[in-house]
């Protein structure tokens, strides 16, 4: 168990190191985030609460497709073969999910900041919204990590990932939007904990499925 967590930590560090060494891709996503939010600002100015909320989650979705797709798609065949000889697919996938979740948390923070700066800050309970958005960012990144693995195997671009992922993510996104309306005013939302539980269940399901299914994608 201890050895395994050490292995996971090493793999996780490897992903972060790679990201630091190839900064152009990280800054690429960052620029993508900034310019898209700027375009939204020019198009809408300071929108109403619900529009703000909807735009924020759509933005998370698009950031996720771009940021997460990159991690799998940029790996060449040779490098994957190398990882294959080094560690088990389960460890590899778990480390990759952890990394993607971290990346998404960072992007989530940045886009939240930019949204507040440019599109106005209608949020009544900032901490609550921060918590919900972090939770949401992790959930979305988990689903897309696995889909990116599939899309990478199919040697396709991010377009295939969008086709595979958008229908699958709709339920989660709907629940997240519903949850985050709480942060805008003092309305009482019935069944709050059911939604949180359901989302957590979704995440657990995705992790379990990825652990079971990723080995089949891995061997070639």
């Amino acid at each position, binding site marked *: 168990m201890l050895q395994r967590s050490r292995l996971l930590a090493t793999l996780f560090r490897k992903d972060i190191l790679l990201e630091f060494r190839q900064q152009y891709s990280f800054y690429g996503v960052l620029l993508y985030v900034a310019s898209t939010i700027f375009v939204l600002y020019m198009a809408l100015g300071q929108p109403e609460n619900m529009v703000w909320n909807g735009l924020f989650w759509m933005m998370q979705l698009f950031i996720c497709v771009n940021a997460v797709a990159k991690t799998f798609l940029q790996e060449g065949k040779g490098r994957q073969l190398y990882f294959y000889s080094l560690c088990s697919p389960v460890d590899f996938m778990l480390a990759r999910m952890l990394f993607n979740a971290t990346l998404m948390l960072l992007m989530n923070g940045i886009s939240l900041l930019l949204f507040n700066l440019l599109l106005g800050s209608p949020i009544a309970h900032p901490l609550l919204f921060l918590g919900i958005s972090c939770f949401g960012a992790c959930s979305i990144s988990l689903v897309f990590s*696995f889909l990116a693995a*599939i899309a990478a*195997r*199919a040697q*396709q671009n991010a377009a*295939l990932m969008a*086709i*595979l992922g*958008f*229908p*699958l993510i*709709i*339920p989660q996104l*709907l*629940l997240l939007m519903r949850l985050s309306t709480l942060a805008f005013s003092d309305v009482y939302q019935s*069944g709050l904990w*059911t*939604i949180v539980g*359901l989302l957590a269940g*979704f995440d657990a*399901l*995705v992790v379990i*499925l990825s652990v079971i*299914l990723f080995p*089949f*994608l891995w061997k*070639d």
Partner: protein
Amino acid sequence: MLRKNWWKILSIFLLIYTFTAGFLGSVPQKPILNETIRNLYFHVAMWFVMMILFIISVVYSVRYLRHNKPIDDVYAVEFARTGIVFGVLGLLTGSLWARYTWGDFWSNDPKQLGAAIALLIYLAYFVLRNSLTDMDKSARISAVYNVFAFAMLFPTIWIIPRMVESLHPGGMGNPAFNTKDIDSRMRIIFYLGAIPGWTLLSVWISSLRIRLHLFAIKHERNV
């Protein structure tokens, strides 16, 4: 068993029974629903059949991943294909029904959205398949996606639409399956006529598609 004839004949008989008894038999008179309650034999049965076919498809996908036999993949894809056809029929019969009870073909009801999402997920499965040229690889990767998508499908069409407000029968006190709303006569036609009849028909269609697919593989043609 698939090559035997008796179940095909049985399917036709059951469907003839469903159509005649379904259109001519008496039904309980409900406000708003009126005669549209007969849609139970068609619309609801379509969804049952779609779910059954998707379950069969995912079982074959799991079998493929375990044993790596190409024939399992052919079964999985053809059952999914027929499942989509029945899903589309379910959507069409549903929106036709909605036209007369809710007033519009499409009203963004959670159930309608869930059904549309389910169909999109399975259409994506076919896009994924077709994007891969290597047959073995295409089979394995799409089997993985099939299992993943199936597991995500359940919350979409079974849990979430139940959590939100919906006009669909079965939710928010609208009439549906319980004993108050359909009488035993309807239940007999539904469970003994419509469900087995449509299911057998769908398996028949799938088995024809499977034979065509296998034939095409043998002669190296595209289906």
